[in-house]
């Protein structure tokens, strides 16, 4: 990877009171790659994501996005950069007072300047692309299942065709068929649109199927961020348990099996 990094995190420190979440954390995200971020519960994956997208001001350290330091930008410039992000939150974070199609259309109306009719038309297609049936478009988030909320949230994060997609556990709560479809969709979009994806996940299958690189978050920093083979071979107790435990082995075998056939 010789291309300049799209996101450069350097010496990031995050503290909440006396609790240290990140200590001198470095991470790069390159254009067009799918980076999987793994780590134990409470290892600060979501905190890292929130710091990068600017929802959380880090205690110290620098975060460069598109070559600009996020913390030293005016709010207008930040908003312009944020428009190039798509974010899928862990629990969807759909607006509960809007229907699904309005949820997706909101950004299209506000930022892309579409008329309501155009925006909702496009929103329905995006919902369909994310795997939702047509009649779901007029439902409210409270009326649909958790898996459907995830899909609708994906459709919303893709609304503006962002350059970087941040996904916080996108396949958690999806059935295996839906999760596999999600993986395929992610690959298709990445190939066709040149998306860059920052993927926080616990799903080993997703990790083996779609990720170009994997960053392991443990002991308050990134232990290793590299291709999966390199990460697997890293000599570390936690990594060994993670990738060579029963679940890790199964997912790895499944991935190899798929490649062979």
């Amino acid at each position, binding site marked *: 990877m010789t291309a300049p990094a799209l996101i450069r995190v350097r010496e990031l420190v995050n503290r909440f009171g006396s609790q240290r979440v990140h200590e001198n954390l470095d991470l790069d995200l390159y254009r067009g790659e799918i980076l999987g971020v793994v780590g134990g519960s409470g290892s600060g994956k979501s905190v890292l994501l929130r710091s990068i997208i600017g929802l959380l001001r880090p205690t110290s350290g620098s975060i460069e996005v598109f070559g600009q330091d996020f913390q030293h930008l005016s709010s207008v410039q930040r908003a312009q950069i944020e428009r190039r992000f798509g974010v899928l939150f862990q629990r969807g974070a759909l607006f509960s007072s809007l229907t699904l199609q309005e949820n997706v259309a909101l950004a299209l109306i506000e930022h892309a300047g579409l008329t309501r009719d155009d925006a909702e038309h496009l929103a329905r297609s995006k919902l*369909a*692309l*994310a795997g939702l*049936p047509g009649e779901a478009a*007029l439902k409210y988030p409270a009326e649909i299942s958790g898996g459907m909320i995830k899909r609708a949230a994906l459709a919303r994060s893709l609304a503006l*065709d962002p350059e970087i997609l941040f996904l916080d556990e996108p396949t958690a709560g999806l059935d295996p068929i839906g999760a596999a479809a999600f993986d395929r969709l992610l690959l298709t*979009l990445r190939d*066709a*649109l040149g998306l860059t994806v920052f993927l926080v996940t616990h799903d080993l299958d997703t990790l083996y199927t779609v990720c170009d690189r994997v960053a392991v978050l443990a002991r308050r920093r990134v232990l290793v961020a590299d291709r999966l083979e390199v990460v697997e071979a890293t000599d570390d107790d936690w990594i060994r348990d993670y990738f060579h435990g029963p679940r890790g082995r199964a997912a790895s075998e499944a991935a190899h099996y798929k490649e062979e056939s």
Partner: protein
Amino acid sequence: MTEADRPSQPGRIEHQAQGVLCFSGDWTLPHYAMLRRQVERFTDRRSTDRDVVDLSRLGALDTAGAVLLVELIGTEQLAHLQTWAPKLPAERQALLCSVADAVAASSPLESGRALPVRDFLGATGQQVESLWQQQRLLLGFIGQVLVVLARLIWHPSRWRLTALVSQIHRTGLNALPIVALLTFLVGAVVAFLGTTVLRDFGATIYTVNLVAFAFLREFGVLLAAILLAGRTASAFTAQLGAMKANEELDAIRTLGLDPIELLVLPRVLAMIVTLPILTFVGMLSGMLGGAMVCSLALDISAFHFLSILQRDIPLEHLLVGISKAPLFAFLVGVIGCLEGFKVSGSAQSVGEHTTSSVVQSIFMVILLDALAALFFMEMGW
């Protein structure tokens, strides 16, 4: 990809000879509105779908553009994209195919237009029906709470004193200053009104009786109850509503516990304890406000005020006023909790039910107070 240096060329459709549709330019979100108009024009004009489609000059393409292309070309033709556009890069083929699959899988929406008159009648009917349902539900819930209370009263070991005391602290102690201030001000206003009207008759001394009557019988309890309805019923609804939305109430039930016993009873009982106290404080504070106006505007000293009170106002007025407090407290608490149970998941629903709980409880308090006034008057109390 969207950061290309050349200026973005809006996408175009050209109808070339021999029925060849040629697509060129960027099919991206910034040009969406214009592209959609073009696509609609071509969809109308397109007589047969035997046209040859040429995608070789296509510029940038994103999902918005892909959706439009799919709509124009049609999903059947895209199904064998490979055969007629083999030179299209594989990733674009994949994008078009997945969009085509998605569009084919989702059925179009039909939106029925309704008549305004029928809508109005329907909405009216729904309102009336929901009003009726609401009252039925309230009566049922009151019954449930009473049953749980009756069952629990024989088991002192299951009384939840900690929760009760905590609720009394929150609903009662914290509300004391605001109740005192508000009734003090209203007391002063009533005294001013009395002074203005009674001065013409030279009977300003009766201002004392007016303030005492008003606050002992009606205003003390009414103001305190309305304040609790606004302050506490809404808090109950929001608390229980958020718990309901977070499935905490279901969790309580699956643990074999009773949400009414755990959550509703401590709240309702706390209200029943605190409202009489708040009412008493309200009465005193209101009369204090009246006494202040009397001493400043009418030269009736505090000592004189007290002696008139002692001479003219029998204790039963205080009893009439305070006897209504537990009833109001029960209703306000029960309505607040019931509305919380009715919340259905969304943030908007929490808001709607909080509003509804305040409106309902204030309405009920005033309605009951009017009925009680009639009753007490007829009884000659």
